[in-house]
């Protein structure tokens, strides 16, 4: 049965259903038990499953990541939640040196089925240390899965997949996605890793949006439609492994690729996607490609600079328009701030 849920509700539902099904699933992280419930994604879980399976942690990201890894080695399936991905930088040693490598360096003797949920992104002046999207750092490391679903449907299915997967999974949620609504089946289902989704069909240009940028790409697609440009919008959903085939098929059709990341571009997801497409299409002179992402600076706090820091539907549409017109013409749709950005003022 399909219902309309928010992305946050979808995450919560996936968690509840998996915890009900499998007693080895536990949830830990700063604030997972509090009344704000991490944007509602963990609200009420502790009442339902008790303080042994759902617990707040001390402020010890490095140590608690290690605790999750050890618990996973003992057969649990911990979901470790971080309200901001910036804090995961404290846990890089455990994630990269241990979680990603344990199975390999122990010759297959252990599994580390942890899910590291972390929230990225913009909203209400989060500033340089509270808004980073560092998925590229994890894509670089073999042994990690990296998923960044953008719809409630995929949020639920990917989270269930991530919990059941026997490997460490970095599960990435953009704060501006939590309020997005969409159809979500009530039963349990998995969304497989490594399958991209075509969210809108088009013939003139392929827009690949990462995480929240899919929302902005879909808006851009509508703007572009108004000026007669047909954009195809693809959501990779999973960044590692990456489904380059779906992107390639589209690019071969449209001849143009614009990758829009919710992160920095240098050594980023957008550079990887562009590089793979370029490798696979060399010798096809008509293909054009470009990347967009954060400005190459730390994120400023003040609103007027923050607006310039992030790509948005208008800048995406405008860039796509120029690409389609071989940079011979330019156009920008009227700027409308995204409702979710206007509305969000916390809670943090």
């Amino acid at each position, binding site marked *: 049965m399909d219902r309309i849920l928010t992305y946050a509700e979808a995450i919560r539902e996936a968690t509840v259903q998996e915890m009900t099904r499998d007693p080895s699933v536990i949830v830990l992280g*700063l*604030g997972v038990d*509090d*009344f*704000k419930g991490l944007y509602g994604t963990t609200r009420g879980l502790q009442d339902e499953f008790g303080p042994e399976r759902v617990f*707040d*942690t*001390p*402020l*010890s*990201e*490095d*140590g608690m990541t290690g605790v999750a890894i050890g618990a996973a080695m003992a057969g649990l399936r911990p979901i470790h939640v971080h309200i901001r991905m*910036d*804090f995961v930088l*404290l846990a890089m040693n455990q994630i990269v040196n241990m979680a990603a490598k344990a199975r390999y360096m122990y010759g297959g003797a252990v599994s580390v089925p942890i899910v590291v949920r972390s929230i990225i992104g913009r909203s*209400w*002046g*989060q*500033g*340089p*240390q*509270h808004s980073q999207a560092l998925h590229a750092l994890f894509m670089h490391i073999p042994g990690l899965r990296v998923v960044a679903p953008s719809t409630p449907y995929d949020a639920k299915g990917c989270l269930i997949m991530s919990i059941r997967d026997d490997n460490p999974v970095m599960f990435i949620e953009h704060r501006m996605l939590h309020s997005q609504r969409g159809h979500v089946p009530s039963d349990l289902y998995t969304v497989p890793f490594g399958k991209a989704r075509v969210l809108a069909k088009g013939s003139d240009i392929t827009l690949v949006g990462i995480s929240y940028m899919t929302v902005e790409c879909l808006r851009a697609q509508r703007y572009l439609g108004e000026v007669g440009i047909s954009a195809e919008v693809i959501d990779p959903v999973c960044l590692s492994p990456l489904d380059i085939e779906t992107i390639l098929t589209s690019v071969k059709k449209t001849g143009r690729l614009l990758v829009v990341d919710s992160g920095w571009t240098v050594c980023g997801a957008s550079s990887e996607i562009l590089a793979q497409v370029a490798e696979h299409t060399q010798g096809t002179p008509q293909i054009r490609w470009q990347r967009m992402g954060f*400005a*190459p*600076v*730390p994120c*400023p*706090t*003040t*609103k*007027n*600079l923050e607006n*310039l*820091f992030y790509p948005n539907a208008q800048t995406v549409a405008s860039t796509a328009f120029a690409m389609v017109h071989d940079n011979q013409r330019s156009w920008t749709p009227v700027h409308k701030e995204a409702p979710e950005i206007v509305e969000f*003022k*916390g*809670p*943090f």
Partner: protein
Amino acid sequence: MLDKLYRALYRIRRVEEEIARIYSTDKIKSPTHLSIGQEAVAVGVCEALRSTDVVFGTYRGHACYLAKGGDLRKMIAELYGKGTGCAKGKGGSMHLIDVRAGVMGTSAVVGTTIPHAVGYAYAMRLRRQDTVVVSFFGDGAIEEGVFHESMNFAALRRLPIIFVCENNSYAIHAHQLARQPASNIVERARTYLIPAERIEDNDVLRIYGLVKAAADEIRSKQSGPRFFECMTYRWKEHVGPGDDFDRGYRSISEAQPWFANDQLKRLESLLGPQVRERIMGEVEVEIAQAFQFAESSSFPAEEELYTDVFGEAAQWTAS
């Protein structure tokens, strides 16, 4: 001295009340953490320092910034995101700095400035300067490994630093005893042979006196670090301008003794009405001017997005 302490307390309290009042207008577009109720710690500590001494603080840093002499106008402009702010609007409430006043920065990632303070103190010792450095942090920050790493190194090298734990019993909504097996942060410091004291009652005079003595000793005897665990209480919600005693994680009865023990009221009662009113009047004018300054300042120009990423050591590029 009493009047100085009173002025500092009153000024911080009133600035934050104004921030709380203005917050609902959305002029401040960023998470903001108020220190109302905790001012005595920042004030007691910073008044005991010299202007050339240096402090490092946290995202809950208004009190520390103001107590150490940070520019009020630049602070309010910073909260407003204006180009005249102390960080040109790029930082906001959680990233206050005023190098001239010895406020060397506040950070939004818990625990991150603790080792900076230690490193600064290392530099001071190396340069034979008699600067004392203070590191402010919360009872939550001590759970981060870096706290221990910082104390170990500071103690090992006997650096001129005073660690000040502002223990308000909570990290966001979690009580200290839900995060630590006991409330004994001073004991942690003592295992590094750092002389450590716990001050139970937010007493601004006692904090002032003890920190002054500690700073003097560090300066005169080149002795090593000192540690103070200052018990205090946050009156407002963790982030934002509201009250939150109805949210279930703490009770108003727990807060009552702290309200009753308000250091601002206490000093008020110790000062004559004339002194009090003069100070109040002066402070109100200053605050009004600061908000006016912030209001009338411009947002940073668009080019500012790309400035301040890198600096150039101009003197060397020639070689």
